[in-house]
């Protein structure tokens, strides 16, 4: 590692340095707004520094990291999500009767961990990033520790994520025993040279357990609804976006080449196909009758990761566009949905049930409109980001002739439409006459801060822009 390597790493180093800086400011002055401001400045500076990274494409930084177009794209997505989650957190935590400053510090570290995963080229970086993300998330999930549900979610995530990390580590040890290397590049070479090496494949499969856990693929999905429900809303948004984005970026880095190089019926391809099919079917079925919006989005995220996996299995040039585009659209939609929910909630009183949102449009037309667009995007209705994302995934799947996956995707998306529309209808139902105009939770003296309003407006614009005018983004996303 030399000084010349540094500029490529700025987008990651700046948030990390900001975390340390934040720690120092906390010793001088405890102020939640200041802490939030420092964190946001860190994320924004990181986003600006992406320009410096973009100039140094395909740049290996020591043997641990590679800063290429793919990493830069995902860094952008992760930093963007990081910024928005901190914006949402400011309004959400305003009623928390406990110190709030550590939240931003840990959140900066979590995003750094995710960024390391997205750029890793070595198992050590992968594992350190994974753990940095996980350890920060344990605390963030249980952050409002006076809330029993948050603590319960924290414990569940702690035990299950810990176990999945152990699986990853054991898998790494097995691959190390089989290959004697910890770099992704040599793993690729070995996997293509000896596709039948059981020790090696066993290691890869155990790593997959950990990645599948983070992505909430069936059958590693059980934690998702409980953690989504219990975690404070901004953290739910973080788990849904940053953690999944990082895990999928890592998966792509680690195995996309292998999947492409191997024949379609190779063991790994079969395993991935089974995971994708199970995720699409089980995720959508679970969401069908769910009455809690957070859990519903958790189940829908399971299905969405199944869709993303479809593009991954298909491989080819189409997948190289489809995966980042799908994720960009997915993350923007999820952030928008959770953003709306966040600004109507506090740690003590979250609006979670679909019933709570009945008639929202009559009191908060803008929030309801944004939530509608976000859900339509998740459902894949044309002219939204989600439609194009799914469209590219389908194109990739068809180009590779993965008809089982494509047909399942289309059929289960139909199920998806049902439950998203169920929520949307509730939003626009007139408040019942003779009853309370809206259920009690909307009692907050509601004042939307300029910052939150701006963030939500940006998300709304992005949702439509990605759906209507994709070319500049596509241009950006296409990595060599």
């Amino acid at each position: 590692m030399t000084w010349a390597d540094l500029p490529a790493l700025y987008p990651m180093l700046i948030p990390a340095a900001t975390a340390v800086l934040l720690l120092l400011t906390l010793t001088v002055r405890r102020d939640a707004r200041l802490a939030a401001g420092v964190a946001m400045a860190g994320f924004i500076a990181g986003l600006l520094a992406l320009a410096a990274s973009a100039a140094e494409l395909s740049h290996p930084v020591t043997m641990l990291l590679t800063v290429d177009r793919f990493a830069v794209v995902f860094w952008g997505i992760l930093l963007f999500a990081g910024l928005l989650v901190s914006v949402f957190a400011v309004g959400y935590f305003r009623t928390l009767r406990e110190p709030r400053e550590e939240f931003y510090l840990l959140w900066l570290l979590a995003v750094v961990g995710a960024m390391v995963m997205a750029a890793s080229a070595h198992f050590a970086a992968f594992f350190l990033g994974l753990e940095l993300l996980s350890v920060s998330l344990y605390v963030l999930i249980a952050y409002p520790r006076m809330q029993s549900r948050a603590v319960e979610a924290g414990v569940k995530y702690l035990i299950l994520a810990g176990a999945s990390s152990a699986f990853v580590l054991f898998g790494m040890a097995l691959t190390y025993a089989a290959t004697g290397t910890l770099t992704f590049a040599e793993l690729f070479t070995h996997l293509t040279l000896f596709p039948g090496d059981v020790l090696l494949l066993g290691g890869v499969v155990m790593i997959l357990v950990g990645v599948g856990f983070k992505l909430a693929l069936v059958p590693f999905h059980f934690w998702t609804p409980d953690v989504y429900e219990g975690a404070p809303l901004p953290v739910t948004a973080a788990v849904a976006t940053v953690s999944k984005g990082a895990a999928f970026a890592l998966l792509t880095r680690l195995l996309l080449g292998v999947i492409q190089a191997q024949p379609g019926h190779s063991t790994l391809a079969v395993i991935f196909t089974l995971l994708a099919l199970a995720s699409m079917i089980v995720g959508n079925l679970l969401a069908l009758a769910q009455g809690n919006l957070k859990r519903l989005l958790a189940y829908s995220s399971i299905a969405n990761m199944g869709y993303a996996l479809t593009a991954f299995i298909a491989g080819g040039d189409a997948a190289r566009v489809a995966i980042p585009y799908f994720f960009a659209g997915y993350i923007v939609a999820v952030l928008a949905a959770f953003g709306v929910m966040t600004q109507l909630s506090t740690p003590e009183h979250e609006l979670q049930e679909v019933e709570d949102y009945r008639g929202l449009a009559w009191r908060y037309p803008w929030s309801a409109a944004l939530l509608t667009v976000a859900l339509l995007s998740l459902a894949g209705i044309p002219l939204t980001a989600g439609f194009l994302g799914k469209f590219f995934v389908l194109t990739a799947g068809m180009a590779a002739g993965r008809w089982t996956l494509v047909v399942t995707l289309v059929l289960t998306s139909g199920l998806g439409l049902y439950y998203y529309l169920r929520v949307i209808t509730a939003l626009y139902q007139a408040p019942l006459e003779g009853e309370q105009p809206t259920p009690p939770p909307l009692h907050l003296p509601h004042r939307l801060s300029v910052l939150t309003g701006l963030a939500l407006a940006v998300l709304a614009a992005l949702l439509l822009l990605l759906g209507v005018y994709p070319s500049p983004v596509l241009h950006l996303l296409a990595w060599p």
Partner: protein
Amino acid sequence: MNIIFYLAAAVAIVATLLVVTRLNAVHALLYLIVSLLAVAVVFYTLGAPFVAALEVIIYAGAIMVLFVFVIMMLNLGPQATETERGWAEPELWFGPALLCGVLLGEVIYLILRMPTGTTLARVGTPEQVGVALYGPYLLGVELASLLLLAGLVGAYHLGRRAPHEEPGGGV
């Protein structure tokens, strides 16, 4: 040499089995410490004394102290005295002590054989590991330090007293 490995491995497995089966958390914890010590001995027999030392100091030492500490805290309650009385019961300490005795014998044997011990590999000395850490793995070390920072801040936040326990609020 081989016999030492087999013995240590057997101790590790037996102790781990007991971690699973002992109902009392304190018992389980003691067997866990034994298991970690046994693995440390295995590391030593494999020729990685540095790792073995770290295993004993950090794992079996520091981390397990944390566990003990927490278990003690959790036992603060009406049954505290009951538990206190339980400390002295022989079935609690006899098993771990026995397994530890086996390990101790092994370590003594190894120390006695030390001068002729040629099983140490050519690489893996603390200096070499240190050079690797601050060379190609520098970024890794930095990340690990961030991880420790996260652990520190997180444990600090979660560990402070609840607001209603301290009317002044906050720390």
